[in-house]
């Protein structure tokens, strides 16, 4: 049995589980919408302020939704012993980790990106900025998933995952956030935003190269600790 086949098994299983309890699929989306709605309620309905805040709020909400769904990435597998089984399987651990990250992204990052135009419109962002929003999120959310998975791997063995995970990963998310919102701002003020996209691409390539190793190392530490 080939290695990639084993990876496909993991990927299929995770997607299957997500579709099984459909909540997994929709809840991050609703959370995303909800957090974004909190801001107008907190800050006030003035359209000008909302326009300035829009891009930032969308990105911060995406980031938090991603983070919240991250906590359960390895936890349930750790608690019921599946993670040990995965680690002792014939596939290299980093491949399995990648499969899990991909399924996480397909379940949270991607739907969230697809929903973002709706939020953008609700914040009154110009239609011309929509491609920038979708593009930056499309390149940015996989990176968030990769970085978050490192933190999730490190904290999975700990009794208080959730909030410690955010501490570890939020600082690492900041560059992604800055570049992403920078791109949106550029698009809103009708400047070129391909530069930001390029930087995101570079970061993504870096992430895809190094994160799997870091994730598998952190999982190893958590299991053997």
């Amino acid at each position, binding site marked *: 049995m080939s290695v990639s086949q084993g990876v496909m098994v993991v990927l299929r299983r995770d997607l299957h589980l997500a579709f099984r309890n*459909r909540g997994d699929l*929709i809840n991050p989306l*609703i959370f995303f919408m909800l957090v974004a709605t909190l801001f107008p*309620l907190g800050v006030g*309905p003035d359209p000008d302020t909302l326009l300035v805040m829009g891009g930032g709020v969308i990105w911060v909400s995406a980031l938090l939704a991603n983070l919240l769904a991250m906590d359960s990435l390895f936890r349930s597998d750790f608690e019921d012993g599946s993670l040990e089984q995965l680690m002792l399987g014939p596939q290299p651990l980093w491949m399995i980790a990648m499969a899990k990250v991909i399924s996480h992204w397909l379940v949270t990052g991607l739907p969230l990106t697809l929903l973002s135009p709706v939020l953008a419109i609700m914040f*009154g962002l110009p239609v011309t900025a929509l491609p920038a929003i979708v593009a930056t999120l499309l390149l940015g959310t996989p990176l968030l998933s990769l970085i978050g998975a490192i933190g999730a791997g490190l904290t999975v063995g700990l009794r208080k995952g959730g909030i410690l995970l955010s501490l570890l990963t939020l600082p690492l998310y900041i560059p992604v956030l800055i570049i992403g919102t920078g791109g949106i701002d550029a698009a809103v003020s009708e400047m070129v935003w391909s530069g930001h996209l390029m930087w995101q691409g570079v970061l993504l390539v870096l992430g895809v190269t190094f994160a799997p190793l870091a994730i598998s190392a952190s999982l190893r530490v958590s299991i053997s600790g």
Partner: protein
Amino acid sequence: MKWTFFHRMSSPKWFYDFSGKCLPWVGVLALGCIATGLTWGLLFTPPDYLQGNSYRIIFLHVPSASLAMTVYVGLAITAGIGYIWKIKLADMAVSCLAPIGASFCALALITGSIWGKPTWGTWWVWDARLTSMLILLFLYLGLVALREAFDSKETASRACAILAMVGLVNIPIIKFSVDWWNTLHQGATIKMTERPSMALEMLVPLLVSIAGFYLFCLFVFLLRLRAEIISREQRTSWVRSLLGAKS
């Protein structure tokens, strides 16, 4: 005497039989009203002198918005009754009403924002009424998600009943605070039009369509509740004989 009626009504079997008798009438009436109201509104009424043809959305928008709110109140009261008097049927009704209400709430939001584009020039404003409708949608989605998350239907409906009751306390508070929120800050740029003194030729189809939506809601609610009753009571002899007779 009143109480015996109450008890009889809360027996799933009695309700199943009774609703079976009403169902066709409600269905025919609902589809008839909706078809009449919508085609009338879409094809036969003159356009509004201010908004042109876009106002035809009203025949969908107002019924669904009004339903969304009514259904939540009904749902929460049912939940309260079910919880206090421990009526199983009421718990079932709560979990059946949630997805229906959610769908109409979403429809009100969607039609509203589609209507907003040609009339206000924007899909969305953070106006009090719109925002509270959005929050209502979230409340509905919470109920639906909670119901989906539980494995056992009994537990799910009990949990939904608690959440719905908490929501009942909160609905007026939310409504009040959202209204207040918007008037405290600078007023919204656009206010939703007050009910215009509507021409009769528009008002009648609107009323027909509203009636149709309410009947339709009742119809699908009964359908759902009956399916739920069957699935919950499948062990009882009356369901067995019912299913046996069918197949």
